[in-house]
């Protein structure tokens, strides 16, 4: 085995099983491993209980078991300024943000990476299901995690070459059950810990209640495309394109099919609803995106074919990407076949086979010449 003892790797440990096993694997491979817990959000309740404290205790238990030093750092301010403000702004604009993409870009692979470098690290490592592959030209490519069900490249799509060059994803070649098994074998306290769900700062809390705490909810009309009033909505920010739950209307209408969110009109504060999962207004032929970014610094032709995902865990769709001639951070992405529920604010992420090429933020969806009324 190569002598890794002179290579310092700082592992971002969340107190979950994935990052626990990440630290364990690196330690077994002989690296000089340091574990760091990031406290990005203060959710201390009236009883002084804070989930971060519980998570940090798990980090301490695991790091102690593995035999690595561990610390905790506070990025609450950075998180608030660079992720949470963005999150609220997007909702204000009627969009559905993806704070995890932003968190990776700004916190885990910026604030944290900078911190780790100041600590003398050669690399940072996280428990993401993704792979990095460094080619002979010194270019680092990001590949999908081998566990297709867990692949997290969607969330990592905004990482730059400079960030990826200093990153390790030791779990990229593994399947989730193997990870749990390793944790179990090593007697790590987090072996059977439930995976965290949803957005980290909201945790198990009621999403509506949480968001309502920061943004005033403005109830408004819920209309069909034909202008028939179907009741009131609680505030446009609570709804996502293609959503079925929480509308409070059942069946009826022409077909007796369930109702879905098929559009929003921010200007009139109207939620547009329609019947049927496959409502035609939910389908688009192409989208426009901004903030287009590629994980390698290699120049891309202005037009290229690849596959894409428009939300996490979606199957890839064949697309043609047309980069804007004057501003290559903008693109039009044309789908090989219509795609349902393209959601402004979410990421569009490009793939070439196993490689995640990068992506951008969805601004608008179109059906031919017509823009979908999604924001």
């Amino acid at each position, binding site marked *: 085995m190569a002598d890794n003892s002179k290579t310092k790797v700082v592992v971002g440990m969340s107190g979950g099983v994935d990052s626990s096993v990440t630290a364990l694997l690196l330690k077994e491979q002989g690296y000089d491993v340091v574990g760091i817990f990031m406290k990005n959000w203060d959710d201390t309740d009236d009883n002084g209980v804070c989930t971060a404290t519980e998570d940090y205790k798990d980090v301490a238990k695991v790091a102690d078991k593995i*035999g690595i*030093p561990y610390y905790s750092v506070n990025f609450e301010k950075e998180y608030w300024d660079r992720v949470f403000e963005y999150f609220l702004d997007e909702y204000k604009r009627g969009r559905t943000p993806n704070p995890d993409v932003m968190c990776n870009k700004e916190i885990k692979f910026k604030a944290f990476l900078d911190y780790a470098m100041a600590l003398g690290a050669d690399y940072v490592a996280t428990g993401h299901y993704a792979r990095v592959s460094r080619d002979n030209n010194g270019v680092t490519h990001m590949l999908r995690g081998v566990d297709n069900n867990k692949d997290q490249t969607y969330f990592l799509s905004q990482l730059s070459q400079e960030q990826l060059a200093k990153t390790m994803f030791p779990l990229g070649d593994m399947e989730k059950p193997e990870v749990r098994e390793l944790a179990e074998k090593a007697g790590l306290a987090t072996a059977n810990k439930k995976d965290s769900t949803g957005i980290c700062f909201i945790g198990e809390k009621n999403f509506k209640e949480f968001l309502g705490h920061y943004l005033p909810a403005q109830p408004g009309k819920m209309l069909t495309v034909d202008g028939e009033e179907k009741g009131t909505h609680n505030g446009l920010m609570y709804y996502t394109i293609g959503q079925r739950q929480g509308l409070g209307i059942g069946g009826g209408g022409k077909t007796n099919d369930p109702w879905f969110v098929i559009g929003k009109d921010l200007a009139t504060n109207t939620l547009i609803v329609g019947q049927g999962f496959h409502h035609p207004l939910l389908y688009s032929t192409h989208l426009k995106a901004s903030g287009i970014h590629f994980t390698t610094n290699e120049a891309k032709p202005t037009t290229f074919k690849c596959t894409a995902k428009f939300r996490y865990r979606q199957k890839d769709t064949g697309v043609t990407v047309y980069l804007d001639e004057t501003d290559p951070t903008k693109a039009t992405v044309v789908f090989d076949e219509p795609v349902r529920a393209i959601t402004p604010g979410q990421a569009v992420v490009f793939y070439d086979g196993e490689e995640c090429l990068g992506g951008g933020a969805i601004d608008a969806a179109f059906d031919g010449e017509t823009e979908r009324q999604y924001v």
Partner: protein
Amino acid sequence: MVLQNELERSDLMTAIYLDNGATTPLHPKVKEAIIDTLDNFGNPSSIHSYGRTAYHVMEEARLTLKTYIHATAKDQLIFVSGGTESDNTAIMQTAMSRKEVGKHLITTQVEHPAVLETMRFLETQGFEVTYLPVSQTGEITVEQVKQALRPDTILVSMMYTNNETGVMFPIKEVGELLADHPAYFHTDAVQAFSLESINVKELKVDFLSATAHKINGPKGIGLLYVKEGISLPTLLHGGEQEGKKRPGTEDITGMHAFAVAASQLDDEEKLRRKELFKEFHHIIKQTLTEAQVDFSVNGSEEHASPHVLNLWLKGVPNNLMLMRLDLEGFVISTGSACSAGNIDPSHVIEAMYGKNHPSLDESIRISFGYGNNTEDVTKFAKALASVATQLKK
């Protein structure tokens, strides 16, 4: 899979330890004394030979420590579990027993949490507490106490030596002031116990708190001095031990170890250490100056105990500094750990400079003690200067 835990952990112990304000290593003589008493397992309350032997060890220890603080035979010295219990007992039980006399207490903003949090609790119970501010040099004057005193003041609690800056408070002068006032006077002498020659009579204190683990004794044993004639109700209820002031079967080993630890500290040794620690200050400050590190010392250097050196390293994040030094084998401290292992800015530094002052995130505490030598401190100073230069924003 085999993880080399044990090996790594013994490696850790070779780190140069400059966090004696947090706790101290056992003195070899204390270690010996502990081993010697372990077989003396009797319960001092037992009416048989084992009990009498244990009782003898306990009373010898009490006498040694009473002598150490110049208490008289009639004064009380109650063994407790440590500084926190000692502070809690003095404050809580004074409040409980004197609430008919008055409900006002005075302390400072820079006390140890064992005092501050007890005071805050009392505030929720209908007591009123004055928290005296400190100057930018971390000092407090007897005049401030005088101004805050009221007829209904029942207790003044003021630390002897501040744990984060080493700054010493005018205990003797406050004792003098309170001689003519019915308020009791408590001092948390935890940080002063190893370097100051403590005389409870000269200080005119009613209560004094100390703990063994800050003077190279073991954890889990502390003391509360209570002046002759004062009867505090007990915090814990139970048996007859410690004059019913602190029930629970006595920790003979701890008591003996505490006394042995104190016995290593005569005036000559204290003076020797003070001189040595002052030299450490000089080495560190000079090394930083030579390396052109922009720094200043937090707290008065004139009225301070030299076992602490608190530095503001301008533009250098202290949490990162602590980690870097830790990974390089040097142990210091910053504020105190709060939620999720994060470090809360020091309330002491905050009291000196105000909220949001840059020094809050850029100050470190280096604290010296038994076992530190010039060579180690020189090595440390070089590492500190080098890391500070690298981390400077």
